[in-house]
């Protein structure tokens, strides 16, 4: 970047300032906070190993995928969305790998995408046609960002026209135009 160029005169020291207008200035200052204190109230409890008196164990009546880096389920855990379908198979596969491995995370990313498609199929099976327009919150785009909304609609329409005219076209790609 050309703007990186500097001249000696560009460099300046901070000036001493008055902080009387800032409520609570310096109230929590602690000269000893450098750099390890006080994040940990150190008592070396972990030197005893996994030996503390554990809380009661929650019943595992749904399938929980467990990290291979620990011996057991934690005392509590969430039971939402147990692994199901093809995405569940991918997740079971991923959990054979450690948290330190790409084998763990990349299949999960894939499973999330597959899960989205399976979610739509599941909705349809239950007789619910997902209102993707509403789910993506595009109504608020109309309200707060109208020009962009209209451009988006025009773009979708153009794509649709092209897609229809090219009869051999495959399924439409998942869009991520909300991204940047």
């Amino acid at each position: 970047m050309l703007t990186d160029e500097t001249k000696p005169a560009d460099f300046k020291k901070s000036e001493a300032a008055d902080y009387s207008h800032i409520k609570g200035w310096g109230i929590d200052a602690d000269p000893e906070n450098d750099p390890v204190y006080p994040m940990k109230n150190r008592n070396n409890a972990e030197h005893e190993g996994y030996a503390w008196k554990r809380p009661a164990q929650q019943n595992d009546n749904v399938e929980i995928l467990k990290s291979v880096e620990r011996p057991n389920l934690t005392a509590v855990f969430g039971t939402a969305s147990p692994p199901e379908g093809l995405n569940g198979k991918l997740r079971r596969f991923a959990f054979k790998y450690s948290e330190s491995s790409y084998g763990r995370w990349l299949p999960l990313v894939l499973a999330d995408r597959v899960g989205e498609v399976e979610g739509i199929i599941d909705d349809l099976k239950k007789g619910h046609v997902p209102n993707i327009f509403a789910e993506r919150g595009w109504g608020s785009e109309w309200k707060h960002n109208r020009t962009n909304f209209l451009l988006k609609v025009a773009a979708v329409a153009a794509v649709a026209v092209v897609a229809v005219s090219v009869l051999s076209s495959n399924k439409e790609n998942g869009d991520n135009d909300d991204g940047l």
Partner: protein
Amino acid sequence: MLAMNFRGPFRVRADRNMPEPRIEHPEDAIVKVLRSCICGSDLHLYHGLVPDTRTGSTFGHEFIGEVVEVGPSVQKLKVGDRVMVPFNIACGKCAFCKQELYGNCHESNPMATAVGGIFGYSHTAGGFQGGQAEYARVPYADVGPTVIPDWMDPDDAVLLTDVVPTGYQAAEMAGIQKGDTVVVFGAGPIGIMAAKCAWLFGAGRVIIIDELEYRLEFAAKYAQCEAYNFHSIGDPVVFIKTQTDSLGADVCIDAVGCEAKGNMMNTLLGMKLLLQGGSTTALHWAINSVKKSGIVSIVGVYGPIDALVPIGNVVNKGITIRANQAAVKRNLPKLIEHVRNGILNPKEIITHRIPMEEVADAYHIFSRKLDGCIKTVLIPPTA
């Protein structure tokens, strides 16, 4: 009950048919949610950047509520108590909780050892349903939940579940000494709060960097700090050097995390291809802007996969990196006092109050930074 239901990236709906939570463990409580925020880190989930975010999940880790049911082992919390619920799920008994590292509990997330359980934050953080719902299951009810003092505004209370403690801990971890120049990357709610709290530790100068003018304007006023747009200062690293007589800032805080803008390669690898644990641009700037022997404090959220950082500079400059999920409960007593004394006014950062039924619009507005959005609170119909 009504709850947010995640259907895939950029798709969520307010679903009236979500199952009500039940007591699943003797130390559980069920709370009726009164307020629930959308967090910048929820957007990482919403954008599909966190592995193992399953369809059907309910997000929400910043909420307050009224206790409506308690498990048989719950001692302190009673039905009717109005509580703020720290975002981390912590047992209070493990080696880490015993040392007040409530963000690192070893008994709340079987799915990953690197991260403790977090409400509504994917199966990588324990598979718990979150608080963007009418009701939520709160494990270890005697450990995290804290009764809201009578005098406290619920809008302040809900921000004490994450935004304030995380912003405060960002400044605390930065080991700020009186007179230090502190640079905060990211003018979202956490960055704004970190900038505000930096003064409490005696910062001499506080600079915040972002790309959104409306947020910079807000930050400059709210946190009484200098605010710069990285699109108009040239290379931010060079800019910070010019501001510090070429030595670098004493302290840099990364309050952005995995969706940092400003570097194409990072954006491509971290946000489009998902081949690294997020875009590391803010962290890169922090490491390169801090002085030799300085401290970089990270509270921005990154994914679990490797990510590019200029590690050679960390070594050569002798930088200390400090990072953690905020141990919310540890700092709550102090922060409650700061709110009582008017030193911190958390609710002033709330820009949007949206009914939970309109959760899809709420996410879209926040994600797209429409309508001057800084912080959104969802209000359940029953609240």
